[in-house]
């Protein structure tokens, strides 16, 4: 499971960075979104990978080792919301540039 997740995060980050460096604003937005998926998975993985373990204590007895770490899940939620909002904001700016400069090149003009 670890290897699969690591490869997934790597592939998402790699494609994201490549797209981020492309000259079209739309590619930049998609690149940023891919990176944000990768980062969210990464935060999640930092709580150690567990399957079938609840994050909330069910009773006062039992060992903590039987539970998943709830903190990274809370962090991911926050990061998703913030990432979503900033990406939406970026899309608006992208549209404004398109309207003002008449091109979707990130520098506002074709080379």
């Amino acid at each position: 499971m670890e290897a699969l997740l690591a490869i997934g995060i790597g592939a998402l980050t790699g494609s994201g960075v490549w797209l981020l460096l492309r000259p079209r604003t739309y590619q930049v937005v998609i690149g940023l979104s891919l990176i944000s998926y990768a980062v969210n998975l990464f935060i999640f993985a930092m709580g150690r990978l567990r399957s079938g373990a609840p994050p909330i204590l069910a009773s006062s007895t039992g060992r903590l080792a039987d539970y998943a770490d709830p903190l990274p899940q809370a962090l991911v939620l926050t990061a998703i919301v913030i990432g979503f909002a900033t990406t939406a904001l970026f899309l608006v700016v992208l549209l404004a540039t398109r309207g003002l400069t008449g091109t979707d090149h990130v520098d506002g003009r074709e080379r």
Partner: protein
Amino acid sequence: MDGWTHHLLIAPIVLPLASGALLLMYDERRQFLKGVIGLISTLATLYIGVVLLRFADNSAMGVYLLGDWPAPFGIVLVLDRLSALMLALTGVLAAAALVFSLARWHKAGAHFHSLFQLLLAGVNGAVLTGDLFNLFVFFEVMLAASYGLVLHGSGTQRVRAGLHYIAVNLAASFLFLIGVSLIYGVTGTLNMADLARRIPALADGDRALLEAGAAILGIAFLVKAGMWPLGFWLLRAYPAAAAPVAAVFAILSKIGIYVLLRLSPLLFGSQAGASAGFGNGLLLAGGLATVAYGMVGVLASQAMGRLASHSLMVSSGTLLAAIGLSDAGVTGGALFYLVSSTLTIGAFFLLIELVERGQNPAADILAVTAEAFGEEEQEPEEAAGEAFPGTLGVLGACFAGCGLLLAGLPPLSGFVAKLAMLTAVFAPAGPAVEAGLPLAGWAFTALLILSGLAALLATSRVGIRLFWAPIDAAVPRVLVVEVAPIAMLLLLTLALTVEGGPAMRYMERTAQSLYSPGRYVESVLSAPPVSASGVGELP
């Protein structure tokens, strides 16, 4: 500070946040009302900042447990000398920029006042928080507001520069998240004080991972601070932004510096075992490179906006290099320099707009954007204040003041700041005395003096061109409310010089407490919840 005054600690965040939300309720046509609300909120925040500064100077640290959870489990707000200093500095700069904007700029686009207050809330929160992830949240609040503000006034130039600014800072935010989660994965905590306690006890196998996390986190702050290979976005975004926005952005770069100043001695100070001093070499080298780059840029700048943003890079670089030297004496001087240079560059960005108003048709562009936005642009401007007599003389005097401050010449505070840093470099207080002045010390000294010379050359060249040899002597139309904030900022630097003794003592005590963080860690982790100790009483 007990009873209800305890809650003053969270007021610098809640007050601007609430008034930012309140301002959204009012229609854009009620500019006067919005201006009044924004001004009251900003001045109140400034006042609270000054109260907290005096509290931090006199007595202990303030720890505010959010939700009354004890320290490593809940999020804490921590007030110590450094954060109080940043709060007061933010308040001063924000008040000046807001007053300046009331003359005309706040009408150049929608929601200026809301965004301004939210920016203030984000900056104050980033300065007060004692938790890494909470720091991320406040960073995002601050950045989201700044994305809006950088586009304020619209126009091709701003939107184009804003696109780069947003893309770079979004990428930096992802690096921030990766760094924070790596640190959490290794240590299992995000509380800064708890981190400082756990890092010395880390297993050797985990240490490399922690340092990688810290390095990635550091890059996010260095992007914000504008270190040399990471700071090119700054040179386009700041001159393109509206003048009051650029002035208040002078504090945004300093927030990156603030976090490094907070975390570097706390997490990787002398007590950190094998990780002690991690990253200092890089900060020093990067800082010196930034000073060198900024210096060349200052000399090469034609437009004044570029001159100011290169000066900002010089100031960032100087501070980064001073942190990299990792000496309490140098840091004390650097804190003084931080205050002085932030006030200077803020004033300089404001001044540039006034001077250039006579030079090129910038005012007309503003009128056009205001028109496109659908405002009645001319009529309220008359009501804002009288045109200023002897305009060129006053502007010239302010410009000369900025020049002296940037170059670090007496009698203003730029000189005191540089003198304090150089004195500390030549007479180190730490154990590394025997070896004589190391190469890093020489490089720092040389670049500090050379960058001052470059600033002097560049500002006097621009000054002669603008004030002594005007080709077409068009006197810019300037209002009292526009000159007053600039004069206030410059007078503050004068006051900083006159009161240099007490100010310097405050900075030195701040630096000493940064480099011996035992008390910070202890007071955060031992802060009692309110429910346990009766009425909220600080330790």
